[in-house]
Protein backbone atom coordinates (compact mmCIF):
# COMPACT_ATOMS: atom_id res chain seq x y z
CA UNK A 1 0.00 0.00 0.00
CA UNK A 2 1.21 3.48 -0.73
CA UNK A 3 0.51 4.55 2.82
CA UNK A 4 3.52 2.52 3.84
CA UNK A 5 5.74 4.72 1.70
CA UNK A 6 6.21 8.47 2.02
CA UNK A 7 3.04 10.25 0.90
CA UNK A 8 3.63 12.47 -2.12
CA UNK A 9 1.67 15.48 -3.38
CA UNK A 10 -0.12 13.16 -5.76
CA UNK A 11 -1.31 11.00 -2.87
CA UNK A 12 -2.50 14.08 -1.01
CA UNK A 13 -4.54 15.12 -4.04
CA UNK A 14 -6.10 11.64 -4.23
CA UNK A 15 -6.89 11.84 -0.54
CA UNK A 16 -8.46 15.30 -0.87
CA UNK A 17 -10.67 14.34 -3.83
CA UNK A 18 -11.70 11.07 -2.19
CA UNK A 19 -12.58 12.82 1.06
CA UNK A 20 -14.78 15.32 -0.75
CA UNK A 21 -16.71 12.48 -2.36
CA UNK A 22 -17.22 10.80 1.01
CA UNK A 23 -18.38 14.10 2.46
CA UNK A 24 -20.85 14.43 -0.41
CA UNK A 25 -22.41 11.10 0.60
CA UNK A 26 -22.25 11.54 4.35
CA UNK A 27 -23.26 15.21 4.69
CA UNK A 28 -26.92 15.01 3.54
CA UNK A 29 -27.49 11.86 5.57
CA UNK A 30 -25.86 13.30 8.66
CA UNK A 31 -27.77 16.55 8.25
CA UNK A 32 -31.01 14.57 7.99
CA UNK A 33 -30.24 12.61 11.15
CA UNK A 34 -29.17 15.64 13.16
CA UNK A 35 -32.23 17.64 12.14
CA UNK A 36 -34.44 14.94 13.60
CA UNK A 37 -35.00 15.29 17.32
CA UNK A 38 -35.17 12.27 19.58
CA UNK A 39 -38.76 13.11 20.51
CA UNK A 40 -39.71 12.99 16.82
CA UNK A 41 -37.94 9.64 16.53
CA UNK A 42 -39.60 8.15 19.58
CA UNK A 43 -42.91 9.37 18.22
CA UNK A 44 -42.18 7.38 15.06
CA UNK A 45 -42.00 4.17 17.06
CA UNK A 46 -45.73 4.35 17.65
CA UNK A 47 -46.41 5.14 14.00
CA UNK A 48 -48.09 1.96 12.81
CA UNK A 49 -48.54 3.16 9.25
CA UNK A 50 -44.79 3.71 9.03
CA UNK A 51 -43.84 0.33 10.50
CA UNK A 52 -46.25 -1.61 8.33
CA UNK A 53 -44.84 0.19 5.27
CA UNK A 54 -41.29 -0.68 6.32
CA UNK A 55 -42.23 -4.29 6.85
CA UNK A 56 -43.98 -4.35 3.46
CA UNK A 57 -40.94 -2.79 1.77
CA UNK A 58 -38.45 -5.26 3.29
CA UNK A 59 -40.73 -8.20 2.54
CA UNK A 60 -41.53 -7.27 -1.06
CA UNK A 61 -37.86 -6.59 -1.80
CA UNK A 62 -37.00 -9.92 -0.16
CA UNK A 63 -39.49 -11.81 -2.31
CA UNK A 64 -38.21 -9.98 -5.39
CA UNK A 65 -34.66 -10.99 -4.50
CA UNK A 66 -35.49 -14.66 -3.92
CA UNK A 67 -37.43 -14.97 -7.15
CA UNK A 68 -34.85 -12.92 -9.04
CA UNK A 69 -32.12 -15.25 -7.75
CA UNK A 70 -34.01 -18.33 -8.88
CA UNK A 71 -33.79 -17.10 -12.45
CA UNK A 72 -30.79 -14.80 -12.22
CA UNK A 73 -28.27 -17.28 -10.81
CA UNK A 74 -28.77 -19.87 -13.59
CA UNK A 75 -28.51 -17.12 -16.20
CA UNK A 76 -25.39 -15.75 -14.54
CA UNK A 77 -23.78 -19.21 -14.62
CA UNK A 78 -24.60 -19.62 -18.28
CA UNK A 79 -23.17 -16.23 -19.13
CA UNK A 80 -20.02 -16.90 -17.13
CA UNK A 81 -19.37 -20.22 -18.88
CA UNK A 82 -20.95 -20.30 -22.31
CA UNK A 83 -19.60 -18.49 -25.33
CA UNK A 84 -22.31 -17.98 -27.90
CA UNK A 85 -23.18 -15.45 -30.56
CA UNK A 86 -25.30 -12.70 -29.06
CA UNK A 87 -23.74 -13.01 -25.62
CA UNK A 88 -22.83 -9.32 -25.63
CA UNK A 89 -26.43 -8.51 -26.50
CA UNK A 90 -27.69 -10.55 -23.55
CA UNK A 91 -25.26 -8.72 -21.25
CA UNK A 92 -26.62 -5.43 -22.58
CA UNK A 93 -30.20 -6.50 -22.01
CA UNK A 94 -29.43 -7.38 -18.39
CA UNK A 95 -28.12 -3.85 -17.81
CA UNK A 96 -31.14 -2.17 -19.42
CA UNK A 97 -33.18 -1.77 -16.20
CA UNK A 98 -30.31 0.22 -14.66
CA UNK A 99 -30.29 2.59 -17.61
CA UNK A 100 -33.92 3.39 -18.29
CA UNK A 101 -35.76 5.88 -16.06
CA UNK A 102 -37.61 3.92 -13.42
CA UNK A 103 -40.93 5.67 -13.91
CA UNK A 104 -40.71 4.59 -17.54
CA UNK A 105 -39.91 1.06 -16.36
CA UNK A 106 -43.08 1.18 -14.25
CA UNK A 107 -45.18 2.21 -17.25
CA UNK A 108 -43.63 -0.55 -19.34
CA UNK A 109 -44.32 -3.12 -16.63
CA UNK A 110 -47.89 -2.01 -16.36
CA UNK A 111 -48.41 -3.11 -19.93
CA UNK A 112 -47.40 -6.69 -19.14
CA UNK A 113 -48.83 -7.12 -15.62
CA UNK A 114 -51.76 -4.67 -15.82
CA UNK A 115 -55.40 -5.63 -15.24
CA UNK A 116 -56.00 -6.73 -18.82
CA UNK A 117 -52.57 -8.26 -19.47
CA UNK A 118 -51.87 -11.89 -20.32
CA UNK A 119 -49.86 -12.32 -17.11
CA UNK A 120 -52.83 -11.17 -15.06
CA UNK A 121 -55.18 -13.51 -16.93
CA UNK A 122 -52.92 -16.46 -16.17
CA UNK A 123 -52.20 -15.60 -12.54
CA UNK A 124 -55.64 -14.20 -11.68
CA UNK A 125 -57.28 -17.61 -11.15
CA UNK A 126 -54.36 -18.50 -8.83
CA UNK A 127 -55.33 -15.55 -6.63
CA UNK A 128 -52.36 -13.37 -7.61
CA UNK A 129 -53.09 -9.73 -8.43
CA UNK A 130 -50.36 -7.32 -9.43
CA UNK A 131 -51.64 -3.77 -9.73
CA UNK A 132 -52.11 -2.20 -6.30
CA UNK A 133 -50.86 -5.37 -4.63
CA UNK A 134 -47.69 -6.57 -2.94
CA UNK A 135 -47.00 -8.97 -5.83
CA UNK A 136 -46.94 -6.02 -8.21
CA UNK A 137 -44.58 -4.11 -5.92
CA UNK A 138 -42.23 -7.11 -5.85
CA UNK A 139 -42.32 -7.32 -9.67
CA UNK A 140 -41.45 -3.63 -9.98
CA UNK A 141 -38.62 -3.99 -7.46
CA UNK A 142 -37.31 -7.12 -9.19
CA UNK A 143 -37.29 -5.44 -12.59
CA UNK A 144 -35.12 -2.53 -11.52
CA UNK A 145 -32.82 -4.46 -9.17
CA UNK A 146 -32.14 -7.82 -10.81
CA UNK A 147 -29.15 -6.54 -12.87
CA UNK A 148 -27.20 -6.09 -9.63
CA UNK A 149 -27.67 -9.73 -8.73
CA UNK A 150 -27.13 -11.10 -12.22
CA UNK A 151 -23.90 -9.16 -12.71
CA UNK A 152 -22.48 -9.98 -9.28
CA UNK A 153 -23.30 -13.66 -9.68
CA UNK A 154 -21.83 -13.76 -13.18
CA UNK A 155 -18.59 -12.24 -11.93
CA UNK A 156 -18.61 -14.67 -9.02
CA UNK A 157 -18.94 -17.67 -11.30
CA UNK A 158 -16.39 -16.29 -13.75
CA UNK A 159 -13.86 -16.11 -10.91
CA UNK A 160 -14.15 -19.86 -10.31
CA UNK A 161 -11.40 -21.48 -12.42
CA UNK A 162 -12.99 -23.54 -15.17
CA UNK A 163 -10.37 -26.22 -14.61
CA UNK A 164 -11.93 -27.10 -11.25
CA UNK A 165 -15.16 -27.90 -13.04
CA UNK A 166 -13.33 -29.84 -15.73
CA UNK A 167 -11.47 -31.94 -13.20
CA UNK A 168 -14.73 -32.63 -11.39
CA UNK A 169 -16.29 -33.86 -14.63
CA UNK A 170 -13.42 -36.28 -15.23
CA UNK A 171 -13.87 -37.53 -11.67
CA UNK A 172 -17.35 -38.67 -12.62
CA UNK A 173 -19.50 -35.69 -11.59
CA UNK A 174 -22.43 -34.71 -13.81
CA UNK A 175 -22.73 -31.04 -14.81
CA UNK A 176 -25.42 -30.45 -12.18
CA UNK A 177 -23.33 -32.07 -9.46
CA UNK A 178 -20.39 -29.90 -10.52
CA UNK A 179 -22.60 -26.83 -10.23
CA UNK A 180 -23.88 -27.63 -6.76
CA UNK A 181 -20.66 -29.00 -5.25
CA UNK A 182 -17.98 -26.84 -6.92
CA UNK A 183 -19.23 -23.72 -8.72
CA UNK A 184 -21.93 -22.60 -6.30
CA UNK A 185 -19.96 -23.16 -3.07
CA UNK A 186 -17.01 -21.25 -4.53
CA UNK A 187 -19.11 -18.37 -5.86
CA UNK A 188 -21.56 -17.99 -2.98
CA UNK A 189 -19.93 -14.93 -1.46
CA UNK A 190 -20.26 -12.69 -4.55
CA UNK A 191 -23.71 -14.16 -5.18
CA UNK A 192 -24.86 -13.35 -1.66
CA UNK A 193 -23.42 -9.89 -1.90
CA UNK A 194 -25.29 -9.49 -5.20
CA UNK A 195 -28.46 -10.59 -3.43
CA UNK A 196 -27.88 -8.01 -0.70
CA UNK A 197 -27.39 -5.33 -3.36
CA UNK A 198 -30.53 -6.42 -5.17
CA UNK A 199 -32.52 -6.35 -1.96
CA UNK A 200 -31.19 -2.90 -1.07
CA UNK A 201 -31.95 -1.58 -4.53
CA UNK A 202 -35.46 -3.05 -4.29
CA UNK A 203 -36.10 -1.39 -0.93
CA UNK A 204 -35.08 2.01 -2.25
CA UNK A 205 -37.14 1.78 -5.45
CA UNK A 206 -39.69 4.55 -5.85
CA UNK A 207 -40.43 5.34 -9.51
CA UNK A 208 -41.48 1.93 -10.81
CA UNK A 209 -43.27 1.00 -7.58
CA UNK A 210 -45.46 4.08 -7.38
CA UNK A 211 -46.79 3.44 -10.88
CA UNK A 212 -47.68 -0.19 -10.18
CA UNK A 213 -48.99 0.41 -6.63
CA UNK A 214 -49.52 3.68 -4.77
CA UNK A 215 -51.28 1.59 -2.15
CA UNK A 216 -50.23 -0.42 -0.21
CA UNK A 217 -47.49 2.11 0.45
CA UNK A 218 -43.85 1.13 0.56
CA UNK A 219 -41.76 3.43 2.70
CA UNK A 220 -40.26 5.43 -0.22
CA UNK A 221 -43.82 6.08 -1.40
CA UNK A 222 -44.92 6.95 2.14
CA UNK A 223 -42.05 9.44 2.49
CA UNK A 224 -43.13 11.06 -0.78
CA UNK A 225 -46.81 11.16 0.22
CA UNK A 226 -46.06 12.70 3.62
CA UNK A 227 -43.77 15.26 2.05
CA UNK A 228 -46.55 16.23 -0.37
CA UNK A 229 -49.34 16.26 2.17
CA UNK A 230 -47.72 17.41 5.41
CA UNK A 231 -44.33 18.85 4.55
CA UNK A 232 -40.68 18.24 5.20
CA UNK A 233 -40.61 17.68 8.98
CA UNK A 234 -43.21 14.96 8.87
CA UNK A 235 -41.64 13.19 5.92
CA UNK A 236 -38.18 13.41 7.43
CA UNK A 237 -38.94 11.13 10.37
CA UNK A 238 -40.11 8.34 8.06
CA UNK A 239 -37.00 8.79 5.92
CA UNK A 240 -34.71 8.65 8.93
CA UNK A 241 -36.31 5.50 10.29
CA UNK A 242 -35.99 3.74 6.92
CA UNK A 243 -32.35 4.81 6.57
CA UNK A 244 -31.59 3.54 10.09
CA UNK A 245 -33.26 0.20 9.40
CA UNK A 246 -31.30 -0.17 6.14
CA UNK A 247 -27.95 0.85 7.61
CA UNK A 248 -28.31 -1.60 10.50
CA UNK A 249 -29.54 -4.37 8.18
CA UNK A 250 -26.82 -3.95 5.59
CA UNK A 251 -24.09 -3.63 8.16
CA UNK A 252 -25.11 -7.01 9.53
CA UNK A 253 -25.27 -8.55 6.06
CA UNK A 254 -21.92 -7.07 5.04
CA UNK A 255 -20.44 -8.55 8.17
CA UNK A 256 -21.89 -11.96 7.37
CA UNK A 257 -20.62 -11.93 3.78
CA UNK A 258 -17.22 -10.42 4.49
CA UNK A 259 -14.36 -12.26 2.81
CA UNK A 260 -12.97 -15.01 5.02
CA UNK A 261 -9.68 -14.09 6.62
CA UNK A 262 -7.00 -16.40 5.30
CA UNK A 263 -5.42 -18.43 8.01
CA UNK A 264 -1.71 -18.01 8.51
CA UNK A 265 0.27 -20.79 6.90
Amino acid at each position, binding site marked *: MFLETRPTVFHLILLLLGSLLLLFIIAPLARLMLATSSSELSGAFGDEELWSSIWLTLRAAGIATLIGSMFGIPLAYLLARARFPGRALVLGIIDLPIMIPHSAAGIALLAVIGRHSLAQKVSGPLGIQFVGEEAGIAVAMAFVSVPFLANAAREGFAAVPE*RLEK*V*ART*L*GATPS*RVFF*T*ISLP*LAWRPILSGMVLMWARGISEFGAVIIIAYHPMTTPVLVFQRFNDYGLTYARVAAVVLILVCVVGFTILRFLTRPAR*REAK
Partner: protein
Amino acid sequence: MTLVLESIQKRMGSFTLPNLDLEVKEGEYLVLVGPSGVGKTVLLEIIAGLLNPDSGNIFWRNRNVTSCAPERRGFGIMYQDYALFPHLTVFQNIVYGLNSRGLPRIDVKERAISAAEMVNIVPFLERLPDELSGGEKQRVALARALVVAPELLLLDEPLSAVDMHLRRRLQRELKRIQEQTGTTFVHVTHNVDEALTLGHRIGVMLDGHLRQIGPPEEIFRKPTDREVARFLGMRNIFAVRVGGQGFCEANGVKIHVGERPVPYRHIWIRPEEIILSREAFESSARNQFRCVVEDWDYQDILVRVVVALENLRLSVMITYKSFDKLGIDRGVELMATFKSSAVHCF
Protein backbone atom coordinates in the same frame (compact mmCIF):
# COMPACT_ATOMS: atom_id res chain seq x y z
CA MET B 1 -4.13 -50.24 -29.07
CA THR B 2 -6.02 -48.88 -26.09
CA LEU B 3 -6.63 -45.35 -27.28
CA VAL B 4 -6.75 -44.32 -30.89
CA LEU B 5 -7.15 -40.76 -32.13
CA GLU B 6 -8.09 -40.58 -35.76
CA SER B 7 -7.67 -37.35 -37.80
CA ILE B 8 -8.48 -35.08 -34.88
CA GLN B 9 -8.93 -31.46 -35.93
CA LYS B 10 -9.58 -28.47 -33.71
CA ARG B 11 -9.51 -24.75 -34.30
CA MET B 12 -9.52 -22.42 -31.32
CA GLY B 13 -8.86 -18.77 -32.00
CA SER B 14 -5.47 -18.47 -33.60
CA PHE B 15 -4.53 -22.00 -32.71
CA THR B 16 -5.17 -25.10 -34.80
CA LEU B 17 -4.66 -28.79 -34.33
CA PRO B 18 -4.57 -29.60 -38.03
CA ASN B 19 -5.00 -33.33 -38.33
CA LEU B 20 -3.72 -35.52 -35.60
CA ASP B 21 -3.43 -39.28 -35.42
CA LEU B 22 -2.20 -40.93 -32.27
CA GLU B 23 -2.19 -44.44 -30.87
CA VAL B 24 -1.60 -45.21 -27.23
CA LYS B 25 -0.76 -48.70 -26.02
CA GLU B 26 -2.28 -50.41 -22.99
CA GLY B 27 -0.37 -49.67 -19.80
CA GLU B 28 2.28 -47.48 -21.40
CA TYR B 29 3.72 -44.21 -20.24
CA LEU B 30 3.50 -41.95 -23.26
CA VAL B 31 5.03 -38.49 -23.07
CA LEU B 32 4.11 -35.86 -25.63
CA VAL B 33 6.76 -33.20 -25.71
CA GLY B 34 6.66 -29.90 -27.54
CA PRO B 35 7.17 -26.18 -27.02
CA SER B 36 4.50 -24.22 -25.15
CA GLY B 37 1.49 -23.26 -27.21
CA VAL B 38 1.39 -26.19 -29.61
CA GLY B 39 -1.91 -27.39 -28.25
CA LYS B 40 -0.86 -30.11 -25.89
CA THR B 41 -3.44 -29.10 -23.28
CA VAL B 42 -6.11 -28.84 -25.96
CA LEU B 43 -5.25 -32.35 -27.09
CA LEU B 44 -5.55 -33.72 -23.55
CA GLU B 45 -8.89 -31.98 -23.06
CA ILE B 46 -10.13 -33.46 -26.32
CA ILE B 47 -9.10 -36.94 -25.16
CA ALA B 48 -10.83 -36.36 -21.80
CA GLY B 49 -14.02 -35.20 -23.50
CA LEU B 50 -13.75 -31.67 -22.09
CA LEU B 51 -13.45 -30.19 -25.57
CA ASN B 52 -15.16 -31.42 -28.68
CA PRO B 53 -12.94 -31.88 -31.72
CA ASP B 54 -14.17 -30.17 -34.89
CA SER B 55 -13.76 -33.46 -36.66
CA GLY B 56 -12.14 -36.84 -36.17
CA ASN B 57 -12.79 -39.79 -33.92
CA ILE B 58 -11.57 -41.10 -30.61
CA PHE B 59 -11.64 -44.84 -29.94
CA TRP B 60 -11.18 -46.42 -26.55
CA ARG B 61 -10.73 -50.17 -26.71
CA ASN B 62 -12.35 -50.23 -30.15
CA ARG B 63 -15.38 -48.27 -28.96
CA ASN B 64 -16.00 -44.86 -30.48
CA VAL B 65 -16.14 -42.44 -27.51
CA THR B 66 -15.97 -39.19 -29.48
CA SER B 67 -19.35 -37.98 -28.24
CA CYS B 68 -19.19 -39.60 -24.80
CA ALA B 69 -19.47 -37.16 -21.83
CA PRO B 70 -16.28 -36.75 -19.73
CA GLU B 71 -17.87 -38.19 -16.59
CA ARG B 72 -18.76 -41.34 -18.50
CA ARG B 73 -15.42 -41.66 -20.24
CA GLY B 74 -13.57 -42.25 -17.00
CA PHE B 75 -10.25 -40.69 -17.98
CA GLY B 76 -8.52 -38.80 -15.20
CA ILE B 77 -6.80 -35.49 -15.81
CA MET B 78 -4.19 -33.70 -13.77
CA TYR B 79 -3.38 -30.08 -14.52
CA GLN B 80 -0.22 -28.09 -14.09
CA ASP B 81 -1.81 -25.97 -11.35
CA TYR B 82 -3.30 -29.16 -9.84
CA ALA B 83 -6.81 -27.64 -9.77
CA LEU B 84 -7.52 -28.79 -6.22
CA PHE B 85 -10.95 -27.79 -4.93
CA PRO B 86 -9.98 -24.93 -2.60
CA HIS B 87 -13.08 -25.17 -0.41
CA LEU B 88 -12.60 -28.86 0.35
CA THR B 89 -10.05 -30.54 2.59
CA VAL B 90 -7.47 -32.91 1.16
CA PHE B 91 -9.64 -35.85 2.22
CA GLN B 92 -12.75 -34.34 0.65
CA ASN B 93 -10.79 -33.64 -2.53
CA ILE B 94 -9.72 -37.26 -2.73
CA VAL B 95 -13.17 -38.72 -2.11
CA TYR B 96 -14.91 -36.33 -4.54
CA GLY B 97 -14.70 -38.76 -7.43
CA LEU B 98 -15.73 -41.74 -5.33
CA ASN B 99 -18.80 -39.92 -4.03
CA SER B 100 -19.66 -38.78 -7.54
CA ARG B 101 -19.81 -42.42 -8.50
CA GLY B 102 -22.05 -43.19 -5.56
CA LEU B 103 -19.79 -45.66 -3.80
CA PRO B 104 -20.76 -46.94 -0.34
CA ARG B 105 -19.34 -44.74 2.41
CA ILE B 106 -17.21 -47.47 3.94
CA ASP B 107 -15.45 -48.26 0.66
CA VAL B 108 -14.91 -44.58 0.03
CA LYS B 109 -12.97 -44.11 3.24
CA GLU B 110 -10.88 -47.22 2.73
CA ARG B 111 -9.94 -46.39 -0.84
CA ALA B 112 -9.20 -42.76 0.02
CA ILE B 113 -6.81 -43.83 2.78
CA SER B 114 -4.99 -46.28 0.57
CA ALA B 115 -4.63 -43.67 -2.19
CA ALA B 116 -3.31 -41.19 0.38
CA GLU B 117 -0.83 -43.81 1.58
CA MET B 118 0.41 -44.45 -1.94
CA VAL B 119 1.47 -40.82 -2.35
CA ASN B 120 2.41 -40.21 1.31
CA ILE B 121 -0.11 -37.52 2.22
CA VAL B 122 -1.85 -39.19 5.16
CA PRO B 123 -0.73 -36.47 7.63
CA PHE B 124 -2.38 -33.72 5.53
CA LEU B 125 -5.84 -35.23 5.09
CA GLU B 126 -7.62 -32.56 7.14
CA ARG B 127 -5.80 -29.58 5.62
CA LEU B 128 -7.09 -27.22 2.96
CA PRO B 129 -5.20 -27.01 -0.34
CA ASP B 130 -4.02 -23.48 0.47
CA GLU B 131 -2.06 -24.85 3.40
CA LEU B 132 0.00 -27.23 1.25
CA SER B 133 3.31 -26.80 -0.55
CA GLY B 134 3.58 -27.30 -4.30
CA GLY B 135 4.87 -30.84 -3.99
CA GLU B 136 2.15 -31.78 -1.53
CA LYS B 137 -0.52 -30.35 -3.81
CA GLN B 138 0.83 -32.41 -6.66
CA ARG B 139 0.52 -35.58 -4.58
CA VAL B 140 -3.02 -34.74 -3.56
CA ALA B 141 -3.97 -34.13 -7.20
CA LEU B 142 -2.42 -37.46 -8.10
CA ALA B 143 -4.25 -39.29 -5.31
CA ARG B 144 -7.53 -37.64 -6.29
CA ALA B 145 -7.09 -38.70 -9.90
CA LEU B 146 -5.93 -42.24 -9.14
CA VAL B 147 -8.39 -43.12 -6.38
CA VAL B 148 -11.18 -43.63 -8.91
CA ALA B 149 -8.90 -46.08 -10.75
CA PRO B 150 -9.03 -44.41 -14.16
CA GLU B 151 -7.90 -46.60 -17.01
CA LEU B 152 -6.16 -43.63 -18.56
CA LEU B 153 -4.57 -40.70 -16.77
CA LEU B 154 -3.84 -37.48 -18.64
CA LEU B 155 -1.13 -35.32 -17.12
CA ASP B 156 -0.77 -31.72 -18.25
CA GLU B 157 2.71 -30.39 -17.36
CA PRO B 158 2.36 -31.96 -13.91
CA LEU B 159 5.88 -31.08 -12.78
CA SER B 160 6.46 -27.63 -14.19
CA ALA B 161 5.30 -25.76 -11.09
CA VAL B 162 7.91 -27.26 -8.75
CA ASP B 163 11.62 -26.59 -8.42
CA MET B 164 14.25 -28.78 -10.02
CA HIS B 165 15.19 -30.93 -7.03
CA LEU B 166 11.59 -31.70 -6.21
CA ARG B 167 10.90 -32.33 -9.87
CA ARG B 168 13.45 -35.13 -9.98
CA ARG B 169 11.88 -36.79 -6.96
CA LEU B 170 8.36 -36.42 -8.26
CA GLN B 171 9.45 -37.86 -11.62
CA ARG B 172 10.62 -41.00 -9.88
CA GLU B 173 7.39 -41.13 -7.97
CA LEU B 174 5.26 -40.77 -11.10
CA LYS B 175 7.20 -43.57 -12.73
CA ARG B 176 6.78 -45.81 -9.70
CA ILE B 177 3.06 -45.14 -9.44
CA GLN B 178 2.53 -45.73 -13.13
CA GLU B 179 4.31 -49.08 -12.86
CA GLN B 180 2.52 -49.99 -9.63
CA THR B 181 -0.98 -49.23 -10.90
CA GLY B 182 -0.51 -50.24 -14.52
CA THR B 183 -2.60 -47.23 -15.54
CA THR B 184 -1.98 -45.89 -19.03
CA PHE B 185 -0.39 -42.44 -18.71
CA VAL B 186 -0.41 -39.74 -21.35
CA HIS B 187 1.79 -36.94 -20.09
CA VAL B 188 2.47 -33.67 -21.89
CA THR B 189 5.46 -31.47 -21.16
CA HIS B 190 7.78 -28.96 -22.77
CA ASN B 191 10.69 -30.46 -20.88
CA VAL B 192 12.74 -32.85 -23.02
CA ASP B 193 14.63 -34.20 -20.06
CA GLU B 194 11.37 -35.11 -18.33
CA ALA B 195 10.16 -36.86 -21.48
CA LEU B 196 13.36 -38.91 -21.72
CA THR B 197 13.21 -39.85 -18.05
CA LEU B 198 9.58 -40.88 -17.93
CA GLY B 199 8.34 -42.00 -21.30
CA HIS B 200 8.20 -45.55 -22.53
CA ARG B 201 7.52 -43.76 -25.77
CA ILE B 202 7.88 -40.10 -26.65
CA GLY B 203 5.86 -38.12 -29.15
CA VAL B 204 7.30 -34.86 -30.42
CA MET B 205 4.66 -32.22 -31.19
CA LEU B 206 5.55 -29.17 -33.25
CA ASP B 207 2.93 -26.71 -34.57
CA GLY B 208 0.04 -29.00 -33.81
CA HIS B 209 1.61 -31.91 -35.67
CA LEU B 210 2.87 -35.08 -34.10
CA ARG B 211 6.21 -35.13 -35.88
CA GLN B 212 7.68 -38.28 -34.47
CA ILE B 213 6.76 -40.94 -31.96
CA GLY B 214 8.81 -43.81 -30.60
CA PRO B 215 10.98 -45.04 -27.74
CA PRO B 216 13.34 -42.40 -26.29
CA GLU B 217 16.47 -44.00 -27.76
CA GLU B 218 14.97 -44.01 -31.18
CA ILE B 219 13.84 -40.40 -30.97
CA PHE B 220 17.21 -39.35 -29.76
CA ARG B 221 19.21 -41.45 -32.20
CA LYS B 222 17.11 -40.88 -35.26
CA PRO B 223 15.18 -37.65 -35.17
CA THR B 224 13.02 -37.53 -38.30
CA ASP B 225 14.06 -34.04 -39.23
CA ARG B 226 16.10 -31.07 -38.27
CA GLU B 227 13.32 -29.27 -36.40
CA VAL B 228 12.67 -32.27 -34.17
CA ALA B 229 16.37 -32.56 -33.51
CA ARG B 230 16.67 -28.87 -32.74
CA PHE B 231 13.67 -28.92 -30.42
CA LEU B 232 15.09 -31.87 -28.53
CA GLY B 233 17.99 -29.61 -27.67
CA MET B 234 20.33 -31.37 -29.98
CA ARG B 235 23.20 -29.03 -30.63
CA ASN B 236 25.67 -29.44 -33.44
CA ILE B 237 23.23 -29.97 -36.25
CA PHE B 238 24.68 -28.83 -39.56
CA ALA B 239 23.55 -28.76 -43.13
CA VAL B 240 26.21 -30.56 -45.16
CA ARG B 241 27.37 -31.28 -48.68
CA VAL B 242 27.99 -34.96 -49.16
CA GLY B 243 31.52 -35.16 -50.44
CA GLY B 244 32.14 -38.63 -51.82
CA GLN B 245 32.85 -41.83 -49.95
CA GLY B 246 32.84 -41.55 -46.15
CA PHE B 247 32.97 -37.83 -45.61
CA CYS B 248 30.99 -34.66 -45.96
CA GLU B 249 31.59 -30.97 -45.76
CA ALA B 250 29.94 -28.72 -43.16
CA ASN B 251 30.72 -25.00 -43.47
CA GLY B 252 33.84 -25.91 -45.37
CA VAL B 253 35.11 -28.36 -42.74
CA LYS B 254 35.68 -31.91 -43.90
CA ILE B 255 34.13 -34.43 -41.52
CA HIS B 256 34.58 -38.19 -41.65
CA VAL B 257 31.32 -40.03 -41.20
CA GLY B 258 32.14 -43.59 -42.32
CA GLU B 259 29.90 -45.62 -44.57
CA ARG B 260 26.47 -43.98 -44.70
CA PRO B 261 23.39 -44.49 -46.81
CA VAL B 262 23.07 -41.48 -49.12
CA PRO B 263 21.51 -39.05 -49.59
CA TYR B 264 21.56 -37.19 -46.28
CA ARG B 265 21.51 -33.46 -45.82
CA HIS B 266 22.29 -32.94 -42.15
CA ILE B 267 24.64 -34.25 -39.57
CA TRP B 268 24.34 -34.19 -35.82
CA ILE B 269 27.27 -34.68 -33.52
CA ARG B 270 26.30 -35.38 -29.91
CA PRO B 271 27.99 -32.83 -27.64
CA GLU B 272 28.80 -35.56 -25.12
CA GLU B 273 30.79 -37.54 -27.66
CA ILE B 274 33.32 -34.85 -28.48
CA ILE B 275 36.60 -34.99 -26.57
CA LEU B 276 38.50 -31.80 -25.80
CA SER B 277 42.23 -31.99 -25.12
CA ARG B 278 45.25 -29.69 -24.78
CA GLU B 279 47.35 -31.59 -27.34
CA ALA B 280 46.67 -33.72 -30.36
CA PHE B 281 46.74 -37.46 -29.64
CA GLU B 282 46.83 -40.70 -31.60
CA SER B 283 43.56 -42.65 -31.51
CA SER B 284 41.05 -44.53 -33.60
CA ALA B 285 38.89 -41.42 -33.92
CA ARG B 286 38.88 -40.13 -37.51
CA ASN B 287 37.99 -36.54 -36.74
CA GLN B 288 40.43 -34.32 -34.94
CA PHE B 289 40.55 -30.53 -35.29
CA ARG B 290 42.37 -27.59 -33.83
CA CYS B 291 39.80 -25.19 -32.36
CA VAL B 292 39.41 -22.07 -30.23
CA VAL B 293 37.10 -21.68 -27.23
CA GLU B 294 34.51 -19.03 -27.97
CA ASP B 295 32.18 -19.29 -25.01
CA TRP B 296 31.00 -21.52 -22.20
CA ASP B 297 28.09 -21.75 -19.78
CA TYR B 298 26.85 -23.95 -16.96
CA GLN B 299 24.25 -26.54 -17.89
CA ASP B 300 22.98 -28.25 -14.80
CA ILE B 301 25.74 -30.71 -13.83
CA LEU B 302 27.92 -30.14 -16.92
CA VAL B 303 29.56 -27.24 -18.71
CA ARG B 304 28.76 -26.51 -22.31
CA VAL B 305 31.79 -25.22 -24.18
CA VAL B 306 31.41 -23.68 -27.61
CA VAL B 307 34.50 -24.08 -29.78
CA ALA B 308 35.12 -22.74 -33.26
CA LEU B 309 36.93 -24.71 -35.91
CA GLU B 310 37.18 -22.36 -38.84
CA ASN B 311 33.54 -21.51 -39.62
CA LEU B 312 32.03 -24.37 -37.68
CA ARG B 313 30.80 -23.87 -34.12
CA LEU B 314 30.61 -27.02 -32.01
CA SER B 315 29.00 -27.41 -28.61
CA VAL B 316 30.82 -29.80 -26.31
CA MET B 317 29.57 -31.03 -22.96
CA ILE B 318 32.25 -31.66 -20.35
CA THR B 319 32.37 -32.03 -16.59
CA TYR B 320 33.45 -29.29 -14.18
CA LYS B 321 36.53 -31.33 -13.41
CA SER B 322 37.64 -31.43 -17.06
CA PHE B 323 36.74 -27.78 -17.37
CA ASP B 324 39.18 -26.88 -14.59
CA LYS B 325 41.84 -29.31 -15.74
CA LEU B 326 41.88 -27.95 -19.27
CA GLY B 327 41.98 -24.38 -17.96
CA ILE B 328 39.22 -23.37 -20.32
CA ASP B 329 38.62 -19.71 -21.05
CA ARG B 330 37.68 -17.68 -24.07
CA GLY B 331 40.42 -17.75 -26.71
CA VAL B 332 42.18 -20.87 -25.41
CA GLU B 333 43.35 -23.23 -28.17
CA LEU B 334 42.34 -26.89 -27.86
CA MET B 335 41.90 -30.05 -29.91
CA ALA B 336 38.40 -31.44 -30.56
CA THR B 337 38.20 -35.15 -31.34
CA PHE B 338 35.27 -37.41 -32.23
CA LYS B 339 34.74 -40.72 -33.95
CA SER B 340 33.01 -40.92 -37.29
CA SER B 341 30.38 -43.16 -35.67
CA ALA B 342 29.46 -40.28 -33.33
CA VAL B 343 28.20 -38.38 -36.36
CA HIS B 344 24.53 -38.94 -37.03
CA CYS B 345 23.42 -38.34 -40.63
CA PHE B 346 19.85 -37.62 -41.67
